Every structure is written in C-alpha cells, then in structure tokens.
C-alpha cells in the first residue's frame, strides 16, 4: 500500500521523457517512478540481506579451482 507522498522537482525535459515512457508502457508516471526506485535501490530490505548472508555463511560447499569452475559453467550451459 502506498501511503507516503513524495514531492520532487524535475526538469521539463525529464518530465517530458517520463510522460513519454509512461505512455509507451501504458501506465502512470507514478508507477514508472515507483518502478525506477525499486530498480535503483533493490527490492530486498536490509534485514533480508543479512539473513541471506547468514545462509551463505552456513553453507559448506566444496572448493573448485577457478579454471574448473569456468569449465563447469560452460559444461552446464551447453548441457549433456
């Protein structure tokens, strides 16, 4: 739910580009700006980032040298 009102100033050129982009996408300028905020800041909050870090810390993978990692990725891409 959107409850916070944010008033910003943009240049006439930025306004023109925002409105043109919104028309192309078939949505409002507000929706476009909200989407840009998500793209710029990411959609994960700080607590979830730290939780993800703890999950990585708890993993116990097996070391593969860099060249082996690269061969593995190439092999997975091309399939069996």
């Amino acid at each position, binding site marked *: 739910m959107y409850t916070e009102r944010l008033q910003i100033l943009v240049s006439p050129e930025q306004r023109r580009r925002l409105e043109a982009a919104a028309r192309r996408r078939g949505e409002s300028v507000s929706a476009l700006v909200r989407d840009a905020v998500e793209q710029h800041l990411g959609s994960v909050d700080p607590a979830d*980032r*730290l939780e993800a870090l703890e999950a990585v810390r708890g993993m116990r993978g097996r070391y593969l040298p860099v060249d082996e990692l690269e061969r593995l*990725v190439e092999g*997975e891409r091309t399939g069996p």
Partner: protein
Amino acid sequence: MTFFVDANVIVYAATASGYRDPCLRVLEAVAAGRADGRTSPAVLEEVWYVERSGRAGRVDGLAARAYAIFTPLLPVTDEAFRLALEVRGSGLGPADRLHVGTCRSHGIDTVVSADSGLGGLRGLRRVDPLDATALDRLLSEGG
C-alpha cells in the same frame, strides 16, 4: 567506491578453502551497506549453474541468497555487450568479456575476483580476495 564482484567470490564465500573468509568479508560489507559491491545477472547465472551442477557440494540456494545480497543488479546492456566485443588482447571467454563490458559501461574500474585472467586489462584493476591489504583498502573506502 563501486566495485564489481565476480562469480568465484560468491561461490568461494560458500565453500571451504582459504578464500572463504575474505570472500565472506566482501559479502558482509555489501549486505551491511558498508561497501558498494555490485554484480550482474550474468554473474548470478554462473553461480546458479555451479549450484545446480552439484559439483561444488552443498550450496543449495546460493544464487537466490546472492541475489538478495546484491540486488539491484547491474543491467547488462546493449552498451555493455558492445564494450565486451571490444575487449582485446586477452584469453578471456565471452562470459568474462561480458563482465568487463558491464564494468566499463557502468564506469567501474575495480573487480574483485580470484581469476587472474581478469588482471592486466586496460582500465580495470583486479583485487584478489587473498590480497588482504588491497581488500582492506577497497572495503574501507565505503559504499
């Protein structure tokens, strides 16, 4: 300062070796917002392949966790691809070239990677996770 994080740093943060602690330091600094380490969908795709292969042991969910730490990802754009095609004089494969192009398109001049192949490229400095001095300096420069 903004730096690029290569796939091996993410994988090594989850695997047992001498790389683990320094690579975890990178992820910790990014997750806590103390460092502006960025990565791309192309990098996370590599991590995903490693995870899915099962050959790097128990790293289930690593790509998703890395996404949560690094979002928003750097877009791999038309310009990034063009710049990747212009990478000259190295034995780099397409994936690494695309990472270099992504860095250049976003004005990033430092990459953290255990891959020595990313060293010696014009305008791009590689920081090896095992180089404690360089890593300390990079992470202390903040986000």
